[in-house]
């Protein structure tokens, strides 16, 4: 495990993240509707090297990381029709696919998830926050909130996503009380929800 390799700073990226994200959503829809191979090639060029990077960070050897990146992109092709741009950014959707493949391949476990089918059994009466903020606005605010996290908050978020460590293990590794790790994650998510206008 690459666990506590030096953590990059929480600041996200120099380039404007909005443009590729919108382009990626359009490409995904083109794959979903007309099986557009050129659109798939654009998705591949953008996401495959990042998914490989994600798998390497989580401890996959290089060949395995490459295979998992390829498997993720094949799943993107197969599942494109399930992508709903009203619910998530393209990157969010690709992340969940990569995450589940990673758990299956590197940990030999499943990631139990609520299917849309199960949700049909009871109506969601809460107005979707997406209805209030459009996708590009949400993406921009989310990245702003992430770069506003304190280094301590960013550290526990990064360890959760990139070191495969649950909060009790993070507490052990950082030699912190469990309550401190929990409150850092709570404060981090509070900032993100506030930025997205999702505060209850």
């Amino acid at each position, binding site marked *: 495990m690459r666990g506590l390799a030096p953590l990059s700073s929480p600041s*996200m990226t120099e380039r404007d*993240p909005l443009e590729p*994200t919108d382009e990626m959503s359009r490409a995904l829809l083109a794959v979903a509707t007309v099986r557009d191979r050129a659109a*798939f*090639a654009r998705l*591949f*060029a953008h996401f*495959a*090297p*990042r998914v*490989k*990077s994600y798998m390497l960070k989580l401890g996959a050897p290089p060949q395995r*990381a490459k295979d998992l*990146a*390829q498997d993720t992109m*094949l799943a993107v*092709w*197969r*599942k494109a*029709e399930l992508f709903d741009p009203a619910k*998530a*950014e393209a*990157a*969010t*959707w690709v*992340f*969940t696919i990569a995450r589940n493949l990673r758990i299956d391949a590197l940990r*030999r476990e*499943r*990631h*139990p998830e*609520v*299917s849309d*089918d*199960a*949700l*049909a*059994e*009871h109506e*969601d009466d*809460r107005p979707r926050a997406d209805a209030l903020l459009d996708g590009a606005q949400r*993406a921009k605010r*989310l*990245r702003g909130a*992430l770069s506003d996290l304190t280094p301590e908050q960013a550290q526990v978020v*990064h360890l*959760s*996503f990139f070191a495969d460590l*649950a*909060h*009790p293990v993070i507490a052990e590794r950082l030699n912190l009380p*469990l309550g401190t790790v929990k409150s850092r*994650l*709570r404060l*981090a*998510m509070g900032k*993100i929800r506030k930025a*997205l206008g*999702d505060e*209850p």
Partner: protein
Amino acid sequence: MTGACKTGHHPKHHPSDALLVGYGAGSLGEGLSLALALHLASCPECRAALADIDAVGGALLEALPPEPLERLTLADTLACLDAARPERRPPSRHFVPPGESRTPSLLRPYVGSLAAAPWQRLAPGVRRVELLPRTPRGGSAQLLRIAPGTALPHHGHGGLELTVVLSGSFTDELGRYVAGDVAEADDEVRHQPIADGHEECLCLIATDAPLRFTGLMGRLMQPFIGL
């Protein structure tokens, strides 16, 4: 039993943000993730929180330094596309075999039908079925059926233990838990749950790594099985 997804009822006891982040990041073991999924199925508030956490995962993925792939890889992948059969959106309701309708769909991969599951008597008024044997990484998940009025032994928690109520209810020092509610116990909590309703309480109990595991199941097993 009515299952975790009672229409019109929303849970009042929610998992911590730390647990939701762990679920979204994929850093929890399968047992704890199953417990979270059962809660999410009946909690629109936590599903909205999870959507934000997944979005954090997407933003972090996009910000990773791209690792170059050999040029061949796109060609290889394109060559595989014809063999990859697209998945269709599933119909909104799938066929549920008779007798299965009361088993939450999330449990079916583990237990098939609840009625036909191999329930073991653990103690007077307490039966259990193991859903997830200990994995190398650790963690476990079991279902318990607790008869009305039965009190479980008073216990603390060395690790992390989640209890999700699927039907019926229980009460402990921290409150009353009904269908969909999650009780999150860690080493800062000691409690004594009592099945307090008129009907049997069906709940799922999940733990993290076995080395940390000294929670409810451990305490139950010691006095009754370990004699």
